[in-house]
């Protein structure tokens, strides 16, 4: 049994690399999209606010799995063919983007209106206000939930296995298909996911403490 698992380790490592790559893509892409749309939600003109609100509430209201099948099977029907890898990454990114939008709204919304006004009063433009006054303060409120959410991205990435992508989850299933050692391999997989995510959540707690010294 142990021999078979050792034999499969390089294969599992490859799958693990795919898991990390998918997670990283999702985290980075959703951060960019979420911050942009979040700024649109807070400061944009009314139609944009509505659009972002509907987008966020809809995406967060459906299971990621359904979203993923929709993107993968549904988009080709309207002429958009995405390879399974990018379909999976897009769906996970859409979901995560909606979360980032909410983190950003919460973080920016917690900053008193007087801060924007004081920044306006000294003649800062909108972008300067965001860059030098709003974001530096919003950052420490945004960071803890966002890092916590990174573990969601890693966990969510396991769903890409359902589109036939050989991530850690799929690699485990494939090794089980050859070796029939279901229990040890699932436990090994669980431990790997746990190790990554637990490390991330510890990091988030530390950061939270580090940034708590800035008082209001």
């Amino acid at each position, binding site marked *: 049994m142990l021999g078979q698992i050792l034999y499969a380790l390089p294969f599992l490592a490859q799958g693990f690399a795919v898991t990390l790559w998918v997670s990283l893509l999702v985290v980075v892409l959703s951060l960019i999209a979420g911050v942009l749309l979040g700024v649109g939600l807070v400061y944009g003109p009314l139609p944009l606010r509505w659009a972002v609100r509907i987008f966020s509430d*809809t995406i967060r*209201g*459906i*299971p990621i*799995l*359904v979203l993923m*099948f*929709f993107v993968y*099977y*549904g988009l*080709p*029907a*309207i*002429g958009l063919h995405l390879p399974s890898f990018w379909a999976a990454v897009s769906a996970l990114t859409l979901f995560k983007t909606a979360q980032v939008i909410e983190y950003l709204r919460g973080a920016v919304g917690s900053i008193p209106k007087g801060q924007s006004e004081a920044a306006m009063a000294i003649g800062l433009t909108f972008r300067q206000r965001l860059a030098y006054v709003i974001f530096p303060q919003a950052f420490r409120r945004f960071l803890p939930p966002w890092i916590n959410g990174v*573990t969601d991205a*890693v*966990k*969510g*990435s*396991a*769903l890409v*296995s*359902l589109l036939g992508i050989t991530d850690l*989850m799929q690699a*485990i*299933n494939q090794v*089980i298909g050859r070796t*029939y050692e*279901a*229990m040890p391999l*699932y*436990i090994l*997989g*669980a431990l790997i*996911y*746990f190790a*990554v*995510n*637990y490390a991330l*959540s510890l990091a988030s707690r530390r950061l939270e403490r580090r940034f708590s010294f800035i008082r209001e």
Partner: protein
Amino acid sequence: MGYALNFNLIWRHFDKLWGGLLLSLELAVISIAIGTVIGLVLAVWYVSAGRTVRAIIAAYVEFIRNVPLILLVYLVFYGVPTVVDLAYSAPTSFVLTLSVYSGAYLVEVFRSGLEAVPRGQLDAGKAIGLTPWQRLLHVRLPTMLRITLPALSNTFISLFKDTSIASVISVPELTFGAQWINFNTFRIVEVYLVTTAMYLVTGYVLLFGLRLVERRFRAAR
């Protein structure tokens, strides 16, 4: 483009979706009920227990919360029966998994709620001569519930959405029904539009109902 929406085939197989939705709700309700019991018991135990018990409960919570649900579902359905002489159906297996899974999330919700109960209330309970059990039942738990209701509602909705994972072990809930229609009719866009709408409407109806409960609970105090 040139894709014309046609919902006829969806309506013909709508029982797959409707039956699926009912099963999704059933899975969610049973799992959440068991999970709530697990969560409450462990949370109450945690706040009054010594170091070892706390560490064990924390280990359970941290482990479950940091592992993908899909892996736990596979582990319980395909893994556990290989080492334990147990036979259970896919729906039972999923309910088992989601119960343990939701229990871990709910321990956290209840624990933080219990810790947020103001000291003064407990002291007041002591002052009027309530026993520890009475204090728990009449002071601590009701206050904790009121504090945690919003977070509890969100967790419940999120667990309802998680039932879609049951489709990976062929439990014929809503997502499974959608896939069946997808593969058998190829009205792909339509089926996912309808499925999405069903999840959204159900989710928001649940949320609305839970908010009503929250309001009533607050008014009753």
